[in-house]
């Protein structure tokens, strides 16, 4: 099937997007794998509606974020996200920038599912207009939310740093 081959090639090229969403929304490795599978399946189902009006990466972000936000699982014990789960880099654990990054990462993990989606697109350097197209609210609203999120992240990062 040419459509299937085309889709697989495109997804293979952009699979980092799905990993990013999985890493941000799921804490355990098993949950990330499950979500990866679900996003892949949902993207394949929706691929028939992909007209190429938007970039494939933007379209995939939309499908991946929609799937992650509405991901339905039987109630599980809430796993507390800790900075220890962030993969170690080559630099030492005492590196202040590394510690800041870990603390910020942990603060992002504490955000609501909606705020995570906005932050994720912001990190990708999407403009407020582009973020508003994915999220479905006005660019002004995105700007207001982003300001609040930044404030919250600043506060939470300090808290996480204080506990290290």
């Amino acid at each position, binding site marked *: 099937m040419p459509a299937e081959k085309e889709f697989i*090639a495109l997804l293979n090229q952009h699979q980092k997007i799905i990993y990013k969403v999985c890493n941000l929304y799921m804490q355990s490795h098993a949950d990330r794998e499950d979500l990866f*599978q679900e996003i892949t399946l949902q993207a394949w189902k929706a691929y028939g509606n992909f007209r190429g009006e938007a970039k494939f990466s933007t379209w995939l972000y939309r499908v991946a*974020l929609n799937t992650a936000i*509405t991901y339905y699982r039987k109630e599980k014990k809430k796993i507390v996200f800790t900075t220890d789960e962030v993969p170690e880099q080559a630099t030492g654990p005492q590196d202040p920038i590394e510690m*800041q990054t870990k603390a910020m990462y942990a603060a992002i993990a504490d955000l609501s599912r909606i705020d995570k989606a906005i932050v994720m697109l912001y990190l990708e350097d999407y403009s407020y207009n582009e973020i508003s197209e994915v999220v*479905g609210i006005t660019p002004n609203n995105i700007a207001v939310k982003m300001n609040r999120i930044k404030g919250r992240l600043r506060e939470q990062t300090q808290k996480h740093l204080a506990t290290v």
Partner: protein
Amino acid sequence: MELDELKNKLNQKLETDHLQRTEEDIAALLNKKAHSVLNKIRRSLWFEVIFCLVFTVLLIYVSIASQYQSLRIYAGSFSVIMLLVTGVFVYLLKQTNIANSNNLPIRENLQIIVKLMDEFIRRYFQFCIALLPVCTLFAAVLQIYEKEAIVEIDLLIRKIRPAQSQKLFFTIVYLVGSFAGLYYLTKWYLKKLYGNFVAQLKDYIRELEENEKE
């Protein structure tokens, strides 16, 4: 340090900690089963439709083969009700098939899923609750029109010999108990199954809309 200053570092972190999948791995994933809430509802609706059709066939058989007139009327009427209910479930099934909304903006996608789930929960609840008054009405009407005695029930009544007040008391307790039990059990079941999830999705919609109203 601010979010903007850590952008690259955070992006790097989000991209790490994963297995690089090959095209073959992705192709294998396409044959797996989806677990989204819409798929769950779709499976549930398919089960309801099949159950309704099998039950309708059984009811039609009883309505033809039973020796008791009351059972024939009861089963015949119920087979019509079951067919109507099957129609509602098929309609909902069609709606879930149309609502493949994952490529829509997040807010619109949430609104579509919530609307669909609300309708599913409402119809399911209406169907469960409507069964009891319908059954009660049939029981009342048919016991008047039944021409042939149901021997087993007559024997049981002769054995217990209840007084008129006892019969009335039992009937009231039975009806109130059944109504209350069915009402709260169905509510609890639907809330446990989908209610909490829908409430969560509604919170997300509220969160998205909060500044638009300000």
